[in-house]
């Protein structure tokens, strides 16, 4: 349980100042994570079913993403690598 101290208005203002917003672009990218994961799903499913394809994806994940018409953003590459690793 969070301990709630006594507050006056000045202190409340100071506390509110401690949490400025994150950059909007970062927040937008984080909101889109489910969409990025969905784009990768077919690649992961195919890799699960086809060992040769899995090897090719592991060797060159960027090429695999481009082949699947997915933008090979560095974050997307990392997600793909991790998911293939997790599925081993």
């Amino acid at each position, binding site marked *: *349980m*969070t301990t*709630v*101290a*006594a*507050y*006056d*208005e000045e202190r*409340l*203002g100071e*506390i*509110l*100042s*401690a*949490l*400025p*917003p*994150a*950059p909007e672009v*970062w*927040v937008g*990218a*984080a*909101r889109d*994570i*489910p*969409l990025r*994961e969905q784009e990768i799903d077919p690649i992961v499913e195919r890799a699960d079913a086809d060992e040769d394809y899995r090897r090719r994806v592991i060797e060159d994940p960027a090429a695999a993403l481009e082949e699947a018409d997915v933008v090979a953003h560095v*974050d997307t590459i*990392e*997600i793909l690598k*991790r*998911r293939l690793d997790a599925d081993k």
Partner: protein
Amino acid sequence: MGMDAVEAMGLRVELTDAQLVARCRTGDHQAWAELVDRFSRYVYAIAVQAFKLPEHDAEDVFQEAFTRAYENLHKLRDDEAIRPWLAQLTRRLCIDRLRAGSAEQLEDEVEIPDLEDTMARLDESMTVHDALATLPDNCQEILDRFFARDESYRTIGDALDLPSGTIASRISRCLTRLRVEMEGRNLGTSPS
């Protein structure tokens, strides 16, 4: 009346953390966006204030924290504990980032000055933000703009179409409402 019925009437419903997590698990992208909105400042502050990461490292940690949260949400044992879980996840990623950027081989624990104090301050701020979320929209907006976004009276006045001379008194009234809300929570959480 059920929550869906309330929403169907166009009323805004503030979901608890646990309700939000439960909705995310069903694949509700809107709920995920709301979860990101609710915790984005917290994750950002941990990276930038508690661990003092430079902006580009903080951005990587920020995206990684939410990506891992999304992928591992099913592993969260207590849905209400999403905040500490996310904090722990972010802290680990920050430490990994500091280790990776260090020329020296760091020991198990990376020493961060004032880390626990900063984390306590951020947690307290999240609690106050939770209380802020229960106030009317106009109060939320003016307090957030003035304190968290550090906007001037003039900028706030222009954005909200208010005379600059009334901003200070509005802020004061809204702070009083926030204090009353916090005192109500205090009473609610005091041991009997």
